[in-house]
C-alpha cells in the first residue's frame, strides 16, 4: 500500500480580503422595550463577538439579525455588569477568584470590567429571548447585512455599554 495522494482542497478564509471592524457605544436607552440599532452593516462580513452590559441591576436585550433573519435574541441577567451577547469562550476568564464560586470575569472587551455571575450559556442560534450568553467558536459570516439592536427593560436606562468586533470584506 503506497502513499495516498490527497486531492487539493479549496476552502479556508482569505482574511486578506477583510478589514477588521470594531465599534463601541455607551449611553442611555430612553424608552423601555423599544429596540435601538447600535450596529448596522450593509455588505458582506463577519461577526466575532458582541457584548452588552448595564451598570445597574436592570437587564438589556440584544437582538442580532443576519441577512434579514433574527439569529440571536437574548437578555442579560438583571444584575449589574453581567453581560449578554455572543462570543467565544476565550473571552471568559475564571480570574482565580475562588471565593466567588461561579462568578467569572469577561475582560478587556468593554470600557469597564464585567462580571458573569451564575452564567447561563446558550447555543447559536438562540432566538427565544432567553437570559444568557451565546458561545460560538467561529465567526458568524453574513452575505448581505448585519444588524444589532438593544432594548432596555426600563425607561431611561443609563449606563449601557456595548461592543462589537468583526470585519467587513470580500
Amino acid at each position, binding site marked *: 500500500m503506497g502513499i495516498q495522494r490527497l486531492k487539493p482542497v479549496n476552502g479556508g478564509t482569505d482574511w486578506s480580503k477583510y478589514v477588521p471592524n470594531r465599534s463601541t457605544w455607551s*449611553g442611555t436607552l430612553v424608552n423601555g422595550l423599544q429596540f435601538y440599532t447600535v450596529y*448596522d452593516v*450593509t455588505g*458582506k462580513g463577519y461577526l466575532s463577538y458582541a457584548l452588552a452590559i448595564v*451598570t445597574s441591576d436592570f437587564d438589556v436585550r440584544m437582538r442580532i439579525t443576519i441577512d434579514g433573519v433574527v439569529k440571536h435574541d437574548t437578555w442579560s441577567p438583571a444584575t449589574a455588569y453581567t453581560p449578554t451577547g455572543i462570543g467565544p469562550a476565550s473571552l471568559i476568564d475564571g480570574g482565580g477568584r475562588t471565593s466567588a464560586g461561579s462568578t467569572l470575569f469577561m475582560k478587556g472587551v468593554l470600557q469597564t470590567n464585567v462580571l458573569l455571575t451564575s452564567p447561563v450559556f446558550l447555543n447559536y442560534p438562540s432566538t427565544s429571548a432567553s437570559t444568557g450568553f451565546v458561545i460560538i467558536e467561529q465567526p458568524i459570516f453574513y452575505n448581505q447585512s448585519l444588524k444589532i439592536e438593544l432594548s432596555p427593560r426600563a425607561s431611561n436606562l443609563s449606563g449601557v455599554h456595548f461592543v462589537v468586533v468583526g470585519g*467587513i*470584506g470580500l
Partner: protein
Amino acid sequence: MIEILRQYIEGDMQVTEYTKDGKTVSHVVKVPVQTEVPADEQIPVPPTFEQRIKALEDTILTILQI
C-alpha cells in the same frame, strides 16, 4: 483592499461608506453617534463579590435592627 469612501452623520447615526474600487460603495456601516464621555467622569468599577455580600449583610442587619 477596502477603504473608507466617505463618512457623514445621518440623524442619530454616524455612517461610514467603504469601497473596494475607489468609486462604488461596497459596504455601509452605521453606528450611533457617540457622545463623548467627559474627561472627569469616572466609569464605575463593579463591586467585588465580597462587597456584594457585605452590602447584603448590612441590609439584613438593618432590617433586623441588630
